[in-house]
């Protein structure tokens, strides 16, 4: 139940994407996860196919309460927002041409961009103790951002290409001497 209401709460706050809200709720407010744990869970959710935030909710719910926790997190994320988005869809036909509505949507889109960027900034300190060292990790961040954001390369190619390089480096650097 806590799982349902936590994810319901963060889903309903998430205009233009739930991820920034998830970071604030799960790490800052509820303190269910440390920033490092959040970053690792997020990375796992991004590699797996499917919506990142839903994967994150499923995995977190499952680790704490088994399949019931997973179902609760997913229901919390989807139930109320699906109802709202369908009501919006029904009324959209009438509202589409009102310039004020279009303007408000545009403004909310800009804020959504700021929210995603703030998530990136908050997660960045997690790279300080990164196994690749800060300079290499930072270079990988910039390369990824440029390849997807500026060059618009397909995601699969970037993840398989840069991701493979990065994972291989991490494998090599982590070394067998560390406790396995």
């Amino acid at each position, binding site marked *: 139940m806590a799982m349902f209401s936590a994810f319901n709460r963060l*889903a309903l*706050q*998430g*205009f233009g*994407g*739930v991820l*920034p*809200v998830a970071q604030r709720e799960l790490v800052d407010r509820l303190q269910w996860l440390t920033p490092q744990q959040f*970053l*690792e869970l997020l*990375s796992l959710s*991004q*590699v*797996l196919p*499917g*919506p*990142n935030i*839903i994967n994150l909710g*499923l*995995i977190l719910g499952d680790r704490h309460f088994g399949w019931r926790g*997973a179902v609760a997190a997913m229901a919390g*994320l*989807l139930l*109320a*927002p*699906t109802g*709202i988005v*369908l009501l*919006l869809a029904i009324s959209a036909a009438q509202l*589409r041409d009102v310039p*004020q509505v279009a303007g*408000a*949507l*545009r*403004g*909310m889109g800009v*804020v959504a*961009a*700021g929210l*995603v*960027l703030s*998530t*990136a900034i908050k*997660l960045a300190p997690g*790279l300080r103790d*990164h196994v690749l060292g800060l300079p290499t*990790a930072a270079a990988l*961040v910039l390369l*990824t*951002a440029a390849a*997807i*954001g500026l060059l618009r390369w397909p995601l699969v190619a970037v*993840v398989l290409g840069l991701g493979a390089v990065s*994972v*291989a*480096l*991490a*494998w090599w650097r*982590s070394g067998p001497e560390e406790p*396995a």
Partner: protein
Amino acid sequence: MNPLLHTLLWGPLHFGAADWWQLFLHFMALSLLAVGGAITTVPDMQRFVVGEHRWLSDAQFNDCIALGQAAPGPNVLFVAVIGFSVGGLAGVLATLTGTLLPSATLALAASRWGHRNAQSRGLRAFTAGLTPLTIGLLVATGWILLQPVGLRLGAVALVAATLWLMLRTRRSPLWAIAAGAAAGLLGWV
């Protein structure tokens, strides 16, 4: 049946059981290709729904995506709007469960396997290697979301204000969203 109720359940088109299965199976197939989120499979959804079946026009399809982004909740809900526009509530069932069922099953299986083998060197290298990419993808997403508006003064100020609120205060992001809606309403961005 009451025609209004019929439209609600099955949508405005003559959408039948065979169409429903096609929609469901197509979204199931895309589910496992959606690395990085459902938004990455939009081009193929468009090809299927608009190009191949002509269930929606180009403009209608774009409206579905915009609505999904604007509404509260996960962005993946744009697939529910596509489903609703094509086939009413039955269409929602087809697109939403089609999109989520395969990926959710895989996520749970992978997570349980990963948790048991959390200490293996391979898995540690895997997650550590991907964290810089995760942050890079967030930066790219922020950048792409800004493109429709461009780097105009109002937009830059709004992004700066959002960053300040999120990094320097403990207020809910809802304040930033409300401010953004107001600024847009007044024509500042």
